[in-house]
């Protein structure tokens, strides 16, 4: 077991694992989110926590933390490899990422945010200077185009990450999905643990979800955890 290493590196991860041992997954995920929110997020810590969950035989929480780590480090091959490994071990199909998503995720969103600011400044200055100094119109036009390209990279990254903002992971062994948000109704289908779904709406302890196959229904909020926690 590798928990001592984790304890040296991320004390809140051990706290989350202790909660996991004695409580349900939903409470565990909530406690983990609170602990992480207080301590801050880092890709290595989330990755290590996901590994710990994977070793504990909890693929749902492992995938959840891999997805969170991927938000901060989109190009970490270890995150991709371990996430694929856990998904395969859980009997889930491999996660498909389009070329656009791969290209848009070439850098961290935090870096791309600053790139976008710089691009906006560059494009703005270039456009204004082009009006003031018409003799250098071509050079200033090129400068403005470079700035617009930088802003475009940020916008592309945002478009690629926007769906993830509404994704959630099934953290219980199964998540019954019903037609309406009432617990007494018979479920129409069940989602296995570690399945990634899209959250559409919340109502009275239930979440309207859509699977990657396009099936929709209401799952209990305690059965799923959002990739991006709401504070």
């Amino acid at each position, binding site marked *: 077991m590798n928990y001592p290493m984790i304890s040296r590196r991320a004390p809140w991860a051990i706290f989350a694992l202790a909660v996991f041992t004695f409580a349900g997954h939903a409470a565990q995920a909530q406690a983990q989110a609170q602990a992480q929110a207080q301590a801050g997020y880092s890709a290595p810590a989330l990755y290590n926590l996901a590994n710990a969950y994977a070793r504990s035989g909890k693929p749902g929480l492992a995938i959840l933390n891999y997805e969170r780590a991927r938000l901060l480090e989109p190009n970490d*091959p270890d995150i991709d490899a371990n996430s694929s*490994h856990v998904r395969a071990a859980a*009997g889930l199909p491999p996660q498909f990422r389009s070329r656009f998503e791969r290209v848009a995720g070439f850098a961290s969103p935090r870096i791309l945010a600053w790139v976008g600011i710089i691009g906006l400044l560059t494009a703005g200055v270039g456009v204004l200077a082009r009006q003031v100094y018409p003799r250098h119109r071509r050079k200033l036009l090129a400068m403005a185009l470079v700035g617009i390209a930088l802003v475009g990279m940020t916008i592309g990254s945002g478009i690629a990450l926007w769906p993830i903002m509404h994704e959630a992971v099934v953290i219980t062994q199964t998540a019954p999905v019903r037609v309406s948000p009432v617990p007494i109704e018979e479920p129409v289908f069940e989602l296995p643990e570690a399945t990634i779904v899209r959250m559409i709406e919340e109502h009275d302890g239930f979440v309207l979800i859509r699977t990657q196959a396009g099936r929709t229904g209401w799952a209990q909020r305690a059965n799923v955890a959002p990739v991006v926690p709401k504070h």
Partner: protein
Amino acid sequence: MRVRMLRQSAVIAAIALGLFAAAAASAAAPSVDASIEPSQIEVGESARLTILTSGSGALSVTLPVVPGLEFRVVGQSRQIQMVNGATIESTSTIVRVTPEEAGVFTIPGVTPTSPPLVLRVNPSGGSGSSSLRGNGASPDQLPFVPGGSNTHGIRLTPDGSAFVQLEIPKHEIYVGESVPVEIQVGMRDGFVASINGLPKLNSSDFTLNNLSHQPERAPKAIDGKPFTVYTWRSVLAAVKPGNYSLTFETPLTVRIRTRPQRDSMLDDLLGDPFLQNIFGATVQKNVSVTSPEAPITVLPLPAQGRPPGFGGAVGTFKVSTDISSAKNIAGDPLTLRMHVTGAGNFDRVESPMLGNDGQWKTYEPKATFNSADPIGYRGEKVFEQPLIATQPGARTIPPLEFNYFDPGTRRYETARSAPLNVTVSPPADLAANAPPPANAAGAPVDESHGGLRPDHTVTETRVDSLIPPYFEPRFVGLSSVLALLFGGGWVALRRRERDARDTQRQRQRARSQLTQTLLAQMAAASTAGDAAGFLNAARSTLQQTLGARWEVAPEQITEALVEAQLEGDDKDDIRQIFALADEANYSGDDLQAADFERWTQIVGRRLGEETTA
């Protein structure tokens, strides 16, 4: 007298009708059944004799004659049933029996082969038997059965309104064995108001599983009487060996007839129980109806021959296996499924599936049961187990075994599946037997934890939120402010440029109008021969034109400036115009007509050049 004649006519008509009905019936053998209810009354009360004829053929039915008893036909009903294409007709004749004195009366059978009936009549207000008189029967010989009458294997309640019956296919079972059973509750139409609960098993040594909540409902004729039979199905299982008697109990609400009134004509008209119900001749009462005891022997499972992996499954089962894919890549998961089909106690059907070995990495299986019937006695239980081939090559999944006890053969059986062959190829990006993939830092895969890559070194760099910064309000606000600033600046610059262009255009327009005016003045002065006016207008025209070109005020255009800046052939002529205009203002010299024309051409040419420029 008239009433008596009417009664006799009714008796004759009823008997004739009964005889006709018996004669007209076809196919079935004729039968006559008679019952009297209640079998014990007091003087002043009446009993009801029901004569039921069913089947076909001629049958002679005559009203009995018993001294001390008065028989009077009060009603008759007739039913025709179609069973498998055959017509069965039954006629029920209701006869009111009124005793004239206390005693025990034996009523002879209505046919020579019918058994006699006994009516016990107590004195009014008492139930003692010492003063009983009658036609010969003694009280000890009363054929009274507390549980009701046994007819066709069914034990009816004493009033014949309902029955509960347990249908069990075998009376010798094993511990843990599941046996499908049927619980039938029959209710005579018009006599039972409601069922107040599910049938309840009166034994703690058995379990009743999957009792259907909605029973099947079917009509049934028992001794010619219409019944509605409700059937529940369930699975019975014994928890310990021994000899038992099973009974089922069902709460019902029945309608009990009140005693008939001796001289009521209405009672005669209401001889039919249904009409009696309508007119309030019955009361409702909650009763509990119990089925006849069903003996059953529960045998223990034999210890001899019990396999080590036996989990308590009793029944008849078959086993088969399949794999999600016969071709796979090392490291990718497969799903091994074992199908157990048959009949028995599926809740005890368990299997560890495939264990860990050098070839396969296995995980805990999951089981699902698909029932083929509503009670879960027959069906299929599917075990699914994820597998991962650890090494490439041709691999074989060994046969899976399942042990159960077969009550038919009375011995333990082992069902085996066929082996499965799987071809495992190496990963596409790695050669066979290559070391596991390394992480970004070049470290080997953490083999001790199922192929996960090792943990990363945690840095102190942390962020407050997982939300990408460009989705945060402060980033959106900053970007918006910058975009607005740049946009506003661009708009301001564009507007300033446009305004400047507009000012220039206005100046040109004003200059053009002024030039036209001056040219008109030149033309007027030329016509009038006014040399000074002509030369001043020409000079002003040239000042306007050159001032616009040199971007200076027209008043600042002087002869010296023209001399300094103007180039071309017209330079001297224009300078001369400026000089002549000054001279003409003071000297008053006149110009010749040719001079007017010449200076006009020079000014016009100059205007044309400036316009072209």
